[in-house]
């Protein structure tokens, strides 16, 4: 996949693809395709006649819900169809619409018989045929047909879409791209909307034809995924519009369309809306296709906005607000620090909380906390440790006996949070330090990467014990967190070597132990940590250097993750393209807006458990294979009680 994908991301217009797809056959064709409909691979952004409509198609990420479901995407047929569609979008504005439609058709097509579409609408049969030839499935053929219709529609659609387009800018991001990677949330909502739309539309007949189609297009399923049930992401979106049977949903879609807009336009809105807004901001930039499903937040742009919205925000507690801003500005980082800050903010909020009349504390407070959390999410995606802590807190709230008075309940929660911070983080760290120190012996050379508070404590404690060891601090751009850590270590008199990760294979041969921190450890033993950790661990493994991961057990998560793609966080892409204070090497200046340049600044990566020798946690030193045991045995009893 990767190889295929890479090229595409570089030169192609953004095309929505679902699941695994092959690279577009001809990239070289990028010139305007003869047949707008079928020229998918080629269609370059410039081709688009009506920029606005095309943009409309692309729509904000929110609108493009990529449904990940289903086998349908996996089936070869689907895949083919998906490829076909995308190209059509770009060339002409109408074409772009058609794409959407086509995509919609696909989704529908699978469900509904192809027959309905072709007959009703005056689509190009030839196009259909060609499509059909390429893809055996009838559903696919229908899709192609659909493309033609949209032309009339396009204008309307364009109008609608325009607002959304702003973010995306000139680039016509094909629906597919977005859809594939669109945020899950967006998806869900879109799907919901789509369902509703589909129901409403059901009444309409295919005969509506161009006029109807046009209207439909405007809503363009893109914004909302019409057929949630249908598998193909792209297809589903478009499908809802076009499919003969499905068509009826047009009306509904129209209704719905405004919603997403409103949501992300109105940033002061509820958390979800805000989140979308964040995404929207990032949309303007080129984003790597694989990671479109992740929210990208740009520093600097959000802060003023949020500040200006301070008074509009739903009653947000100042403490929470403060923490949120600190996340946003990067003043608080590190799993433990963020978690503690959040919990303490919640403590404050709970202290000042009073149950509104006619509501019960557990319910109302849970909702409150929920709204705080979504605010924090908007500021920065939650870490898994925070997720666990929130789960703990909500659980505590839910378990509060109804008989408790409000003040008692609040005191209870307060002390619960204190206990959590104390037991799960502070004491856990002490235990980890105690264990880890036993693995440091005189003469060791310890390699550390990133800046983990637990690892730092281990080193300091070992130093206090008088162990003779040397530390290799490995660092990486752009954060260079290692320098801070290095400063503290050197300040304590520890013998250090500082290097960048580029030199890892050189330095590794003299290392006897690698100590790493972790943002989370997943239940297949995968260590989810600062990007670069996997690289360090792999090199260490190939040098037969033991890799020790220090991680508090409250950061364990029962999820299984095999790669760094499906769940991750995107940092500010600017920081990797620009080196602060080095004007002479900022070669990328000015190419920021290039449509074919995409910057990827991942924050985390996943280290396979094969490369981890040991996980040091508050339950002792365990092999990575035992993480699920700890999650199973202790999660319920300690964390969730």
């Amino acid at each position, binding site marked *: 996949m990767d190889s295929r994908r890479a090229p595409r991301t570089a030169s192609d217009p953004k095309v929505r693809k679902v699941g695994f797809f092959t690279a577009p056959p001809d990239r070289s064709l990028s010139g305007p395709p003869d047949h707008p409909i079928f020229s998918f691979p080629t269609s370059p952004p410039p081709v688009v006649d009506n920029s606005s409509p095309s943009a409309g198609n692309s729509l904000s990420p929110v609108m493009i819900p990529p449904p990940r479901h289903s086998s349908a995407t996996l089936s070869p047929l689907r895949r083919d169809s998906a490829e076909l569609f995308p190209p059509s979008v770009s060339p002409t504005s109408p074409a772009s619409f058609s794409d959407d439609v086509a995509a919609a058709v696909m989704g529908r097509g699978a469900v509904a018989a192809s027959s309905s579409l072709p007959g009703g609408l005056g689509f190009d049969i030839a196009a259909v045929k060609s499509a059909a030839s390429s893809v055996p499935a009838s559903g696919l053929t229908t899709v192609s047909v659909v493309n033609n219709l949209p032309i009339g529609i396009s204008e309307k659609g364009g109008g609608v879409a325009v607002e959304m387009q702003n973010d995306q800018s000139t680039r016509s991001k094909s629906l597919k791209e977005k859809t594939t990677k669109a945020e899950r949330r967006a998806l869900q909502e879109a799907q919901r909307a789509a369902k509703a739309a589909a129901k409403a539309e059901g009444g309409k007949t295919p005969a509506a034809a161009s006029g109807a189609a046009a209207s439909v297009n405007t809503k363009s399923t893109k914004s909302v995924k019409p057929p949630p049930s249908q598998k193909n992401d792209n297809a589903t979106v478009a499908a809802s519009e076009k499919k003969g049977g499905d068509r009826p949903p047009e009306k509904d879609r129209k209704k719905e369309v405004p919603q997403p807009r409103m949501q992300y336009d109105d940033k002061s809105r509820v958390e979800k809306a805000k989140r979308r807004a964040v995404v929207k901001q990032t949309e303007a930039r080129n984003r790597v296709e694989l990671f479109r499903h992740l929210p990208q937040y740009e520093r600097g742009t959000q802060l003023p906005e949020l500040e200006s919205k301070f008074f509009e925000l739903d009653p947000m507690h100042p403490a929470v607000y403060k923490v949120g801003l600190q996340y946003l500005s990067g003043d608080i980082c590190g799993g433990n620090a963020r978690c503690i800050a959040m919990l303490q903010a919640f403590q404050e909020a709970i202290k000042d909380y009073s149950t509104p009349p006619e509501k019960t504390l557990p319910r109302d407070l849970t909702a409150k906390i929920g709204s705080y959390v979504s605010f924090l999410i908007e500021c920065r995606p939650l870490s898994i440790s925070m997720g666990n802590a929130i789960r703990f807190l909500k659980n505590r709230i839910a378990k509060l006996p109804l008989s408790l008075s409000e003040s008692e309940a609040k005191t209870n929660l307060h002390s619960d949070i204190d206990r959590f911070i104390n037991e799960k983080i502070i004491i856990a760290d002490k235990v980890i330090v105690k264990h880890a120190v036993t*693995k440091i*012996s005189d003469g060791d050379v310890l390699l550390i990467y990133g800046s983990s508070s637990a690892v730092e404590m281990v080193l300091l404690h070992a130093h206090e014990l008088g162990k003779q060891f040397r530390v290799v601090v490995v660092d990486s751009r752009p954060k260079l967190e290692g320098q801070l850590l290095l400063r503290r270590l050197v300040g304590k008199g520890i013998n250090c070597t500082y290097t960048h990760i580029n030199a890892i294979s050189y330095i590794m041969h003299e290392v006897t*132990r690698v100590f790493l921190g972790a943002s989370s450890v997943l239940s297949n033993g995968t260590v989810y940590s600062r990007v670069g950790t996997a690289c360090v661990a792999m090199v260490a493994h190939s040098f037969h250097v*033991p890799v*020790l991961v220090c991680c508090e057990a409250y950061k364990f998560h029962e999820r299984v993750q095999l790669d760094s793609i499906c769940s991750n966080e995107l940092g500010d892409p600017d920081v990797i393209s620009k080196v602060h204070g080095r004007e002479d090497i900022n070669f990328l200046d000015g190419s920021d807006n290039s449509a074919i340049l995409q910057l990827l600044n991942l924050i985390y990566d996943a280290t396979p458990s094969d490369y981890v*020798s*040991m996980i040091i946690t508050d*339950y*002792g*030193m*365990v*092999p990575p*294979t*035992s993480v699920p*045991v*700890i999650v199973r*045995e*202790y999660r319920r009893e300690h964390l969730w009680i």
Partner: protein
Amino acid sequence: MWWRSASFILDKQQNDAVPKLRNPPDTLTPPSPPPLSMPDTLQNPNPQNNISAYYQTRAAHHAVVTSDWLAQAQAAVGSDLDGAPETGVPTVAGKPFSVIDEFNSWRKQPDLAEAVAAIRALAAVIRNCQATTMMELEIELKKASDSLKLWDTTSISLTAGCDLFMRYVTRTSALEYEDFNSAKSRLIERAEKFGEISCKARRIIAMLSQDFIFDGCTILVHGFSRVVLEVLKTAAQSKKLFRVFCTEGRPDRTGLRLSNELAKLDVPVKLLIDSAVAYTMDEVDMVLVGADGVVESGGIINMMGTYQIALVAHSMNKPVYVAAESYKFARLYPLDQKDMGPALRPIDFGVPIPSKVEVETSAWDYTPPQYLTLLFTDLGVLTPSVVSDELIQLYL
């Protein structure tokens, strides 16, 4: 191969009502004299620094010590080695009751593993304890197990056995709600049960592993392990046809002893020098070794040479099976070979070694879990990663 699954075999095992190898001779336990206070035993009663008690125990248990080795060992250690642990613990001799004495008396039974002896001794401690509260009893027990552990700090199974006993016996919270006497009798009951389980462990393992030994197979064994011997004996008794390659097991030649035992059972045996393992590996169908300790990663600590055999077997895709009782599961996690305290032993090279030449005298090595196929334990046939699960469930 479903019938090889541990649970199935265990069920079968229970149904078969396996004859108990030995009934715990509870009656033999010495009469209970005055309460034991043994601060004196807390200092290491084992004075030799040069030779680990681990090695002594082995030497005492495995009679295959050559005379020249003995001579050298004696020269190295001093006069009172003699392998007699009793002489090593003179300080306690006068005391009315001491775990160490108890332990030693149990230890003299040749078939009884060290850890089981310790478990028995600790059970006797409970029985003889005159404490009147649970707390006192626990403290007493703790002291006893500490002194036992100190007696031989290099024996993993001894330490692990003591720890496990403590966990097993004192774990229930229900004990807190009973009056002292019934709680104590409950403890004794558990202690006996644990001792019994430990005694039967070898038998259970032998039964469990039978399905892995098929007719016509060639088994490579390393060192002398009573569990492995039991496994092979059971296989031979059930008329399986197999042959065994024994490594020599330098320097204490434990392989020789094993080959002697096997020859008595009419099992075809071939003796290899330790360095011939790779040479013969392609004829071998499986490697079967015992373990001094099973560590948390699922790896094993065993007699020197196990690691290289496992490496060779791994590279030739031969299965490596480990037979080990569950009381050898230790809360240790060595990261590499040097990450554990060495158990030293003298090595006889047959010629005088110039004093400038250094000799590697460690008695064991650590085999990481990725080179092991399965562990035969009395808890069932486990993959290495399950060891940690079991340990976590036991200790946390």
